[in-house]
């Protein structure tokens, strides 16, 4: 793997917290320059000048963390955003701070931690709704979803369950039931249908936003329209 590929692959682990998709897939990575194999400079861009600064901060900070695991010198720059200066300077300064207290860049701002957690819960909810659809498509009767085990779900709908598993890891959930709330408590046969219906709204919202943001990015930077 070349150093550039390594950088791209590291950035592929960074997700837009609200859209729940990798920044590489969303088109947010504008440029990667690697020097001497050990120093990397990455430019990020967002769909609008006024994209929410809290999410922008999280992505810049996450990108810096992901790259720092593979490169000695990391420079992440957010382009053309109303808070570019504050975010670029802030993240760079905090990352020095993080070198002393590694692994917890965002601890400086409890509000950001809470915000990230809200979206991790939403992503978990939406992923379970997609899994419910995949299970029903694979022949599971909807009435039996609530009593289905996590192991059976993984076997019946492996791809959708893997997506749920990633979100479970982030939330620290460990449940033997296929469906559980964001505290890891299994959903009951009487509560699951209503819960899944709301989860559908969450999924529609997240997926719709991703499409809208993609379109705005294409308009802003004159990119070819994605299929």
């Amino acid at each position, binding site marked *: 793997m070349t150093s550039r590929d390594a950088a791209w692959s590291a950035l592929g682990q960074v997700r837009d917290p*609200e859209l729940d998709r990798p920044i590489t897939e969303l088109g947010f990575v504008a440029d990667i320059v690697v020097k001497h194999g050990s120093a990397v400079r990455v430019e990020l861009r967002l*769909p*609008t*000048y*006024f*994209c*929410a*600064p*809290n999410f922008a*901060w999280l992505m810049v900070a996450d990108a810096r963390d992901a790259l720092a695991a593979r490169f000695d010198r990391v420079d992440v720059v957010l382009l053309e955003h*109303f*808070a570019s200066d*504050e975010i670029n300077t802030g993240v760079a300064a905090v990352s020095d701070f993080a070198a002393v207290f590694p692994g917890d860049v965002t601890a400086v*701002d409890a*509000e*950001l931690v809470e*915000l990230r957690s809200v979206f991790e819960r*939403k992503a978990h909810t939406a992923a379970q709704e997609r899994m419910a659809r995949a299970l029903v498509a694979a022949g599971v009767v909807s009435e039996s979803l609530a009593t289905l085990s996590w192991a059976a779900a993984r076997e019946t709908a492996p791809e959708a369950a893997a997506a749920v598993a990633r979100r479970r890891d982030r939330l620290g959930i460990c449940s033997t039931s296929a469906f559980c709330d964001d505290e890891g408590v299994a959903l009951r046969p009487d509560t699951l249908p209503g819960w899944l219906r*709301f989860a*559908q*709204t*969450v999924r*529609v*919202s997240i*997926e*719709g*936003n991703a*499409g*809208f943001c993609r*379109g*705005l990015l*294409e*308009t*802003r930077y004159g990119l070819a329209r994605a299929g």
Partner: protein
Amino acid sequence: MYSKDGNSYFIVDGHTHFWDGSPANQINRYGEGFIKCFYDYHSNLSPEEYKWTLDHFERYSEEDMVHDLFEVGYDDVAILQSTYLMDWYVNGFNTTQQNGEMAERHPGRFIVNGRFDPRDGENGLAELERLHERWQLRGVKLYTAEWKGESKGWKLSDPWAYRYLEKCAELGIRNIHVHKGPTVYPMNRDAFDVADVDDAATAFPTLRFIVEHVGLPRLEDFCWIATQEPNVYGGLAVAMPFIHSRPRYFGQIIGELLYWMGEDRILFGSDYAIWQPKWLVERFVDFQIPADMQGEYGTISVNQKKKILGLNAARLYDIKVPGELDIVDGAGESGAIGSTPEPEAATA
């Protein structure tokens, strides 16, 4: 009024602006960034033949507006929403005064909504009274994420916001439009959080809270509070244009709204000049939930469209609807999860 296939629709455009975003009016890079962000929304989601140049978009004329809304557009009445942004624009982006002066030259066409900012304290309360006296306000438009000096936003549940809402109730300003959605952001604080609308709607049952842009990008949070609070409404500005570029997504949005809150609390808005009502109304009347999604969402009826396009807003703003354009139908058809709006007699 718009007619198609033997049906006629009374159109109330619930969300329009008469702004000045021109470079001469911009104070700083935020003002410039704001209008350019609007312009990207416009360019990205408008059909080709409705796209303007940036120059035209920054400042259009009164003639343009009247032409686009009432001459080629089908609006019967348009509601002008005030957006001050005094930290970014010399004369404000579009103040109540600027909107009102234009409205007075076109009697019967516009309804002028005011605004308030609870961070203005006692002086602001007096100013709201003056605005009401001058323009006979029936509604206000609020930007909870608006910047003001060091402050990057406020909440509807703040004690001072309650003082202003009490004043609105006292003056009979019952329609509280709240911008919860894209384009104006505070640092760090979550600009989309609608929890404060939930609190205020409970505390002020005689006021109606119209959440603009139906809470996008947090449709689910908005739907949730709308099922709890009968005096919460959804404004479709920004959601509407998806009907052109992403009709399936639009189908999902409208399907979700009908499922959770029903058709009596959804209001059409073009967000002019970001988008034009002519094509939005034409497309909406032609629109149907895609066939493969109907199992989930059902279909949308002519009467539901009539309510969304104008009758619902006419009810909130006491706009007289010509008899033949009204429908004699009380309850909603959708059997939505949320409660229906309060009967007028109970709160009058």
